[in-house]
């Protein structure tokens, strides 16, 4: 296997170059997917036979929840890479992705609460999924808070990496225990996201929205990372050249 690719990944300049080339593509893909998906989902997809039009919030809720969860996995992967291979770019990714993940979790919670009103008649129920998302939000807060509390940059990166890994080991345990707690306290009520066999016209726009959210996530992550890399490397010659060229 050729490892030069992997080692190049550690170079901030290489990252800045390549991400600059990828960024427009992700942005275009994101805009296309999101606009097609939302127009399709909000105007053309059929109504749900039980929930009517209110079900359409899944076109925001589900993608946000997906991205929020995979973002945490990404944090842990970045943490492992940072601790094992001491790759500085992984530190940058960890630091930049955490707030995006927290926002996505927040969006998922907010849309879930809005959805709850027409479905359950109240903004908040201790539904297993919503509760898990709430805990995920707290996990994100922990990572962000720890990163900000430690002033030394390397120490802070390593500590958050360890915390992210510990969190990822715990997430399945938390998820199962919450699911199980939920069945114990609210025996099999109406579950909104586990629809038996959603018709194609409904899930296809959902798929587009999910992909669109991932593209949006990638774009914002790359933009944040590029800025952070420039800030960290501001003394080097290549950054000065980049800045001169753009100004």
């Amino acid at each position, binding site marked *: 296997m050729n490892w030069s690719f992997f080692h190049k990944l550690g170079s901030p300049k290489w990252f800045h170059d390549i991400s600059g080339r990828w960024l427009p593509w992700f942005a275009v893909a994101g805009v296309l997917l999101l606009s097609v998906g939302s127009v399709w989902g909000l105007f053309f997809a059929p109504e749900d036979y039980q929930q009517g039009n209110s079900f359409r919030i899944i076109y925001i809720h589900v993608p946000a929840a997906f991205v929020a969860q995979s973002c945490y996995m990404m944090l842990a992967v970045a943490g492992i890479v940072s601790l094992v291979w001491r790759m500085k770019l992984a530190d940058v990714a960890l630091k930049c992705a955490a707030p995006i993940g927290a926002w996505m979790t927040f969006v998922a919670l907010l849309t879930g609460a809005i959805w709850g009103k027409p479905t359950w008649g109240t903004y908040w129920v201790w539904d297993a999924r919503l509760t898990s998302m709430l805990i995920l939000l707290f996990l994100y807060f922990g990572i962000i808070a720890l990163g900000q509390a430690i002033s*030394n940059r390397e120490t802070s990166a390593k500590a958050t990496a360890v915390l992210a890994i510990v969190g990822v080991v715990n997430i399945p345990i938390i998820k199962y225990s919450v699911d199980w707690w939920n069945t114990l306290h609210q025996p099999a009520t109406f579950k909104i996201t586990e629809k038996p066999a959603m018709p194609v016209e409904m899930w296809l726009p959902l798929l587009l929205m999910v992909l669109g959210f991932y593209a949006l996530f990638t774009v914002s992550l790359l933009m944040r990372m590029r800025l952070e890399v420039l800030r*960290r490397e501001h003394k080097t010659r290549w950054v000065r050249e980049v800045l001169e060229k753009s100004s």
Partner: protein
Amino acid sequence: MKPLPVELDSLACERDQRELFASLSLRLEPGEILQVAGPNGSGKTSLLRIMAGLLPASAGEIHYGGRSVFHGAGQEDWRRHRLFIGHAPAVKGALTAEENLSWLCALSEPVAVEAIWQALEQVGLRGFEDIPCHNLSAGQHRRVALARLYLERHPVWILDEPFTAIDKAGVAALEKHIVKHAALGGMVIMTTHHGLEHLPGVRQLDMGQLN
């Protein structure tokens, strides 16, 4: 235990985006005393902490007997051979001098109580063996920590400001002990603002003049 040669190979240290030193290369033979000097903030303590294994170097290598001390068998050897006494003396106030030393030595190799008492006598703490250390002065705390130099058999000593808070007689005794350790083939790497010119065979590394 005889030490092996220590080699620093283009070692670099960066703390909070500030380069403290870079491409520091140096070879130390058994029997040498190295005084790391330089102004405050020049990276003396960081160099010692990197050598001890507390701080990762941002670039470069340290070899002990030709093997890297950052991993593998070289690291194992290095861990057993080097003794680090830092700014903080690692002395617990709630424990007596004897209890403190007994635990600190056990971290590498347990020692007998009689040996501890002898060592305490040599650092001038006779009669203070079983008094909780929070009743001792700062200089006496330091002496408790330094008693390890009389107890443990590490051939390489890494000492960060060992003379802090110690009176003249104590400094003289410690200097004598350091010279004796080097004469027996041991190696000493230390920072101090105290002049060591009168000691035989002390090498100077001036961190202020590196860059």
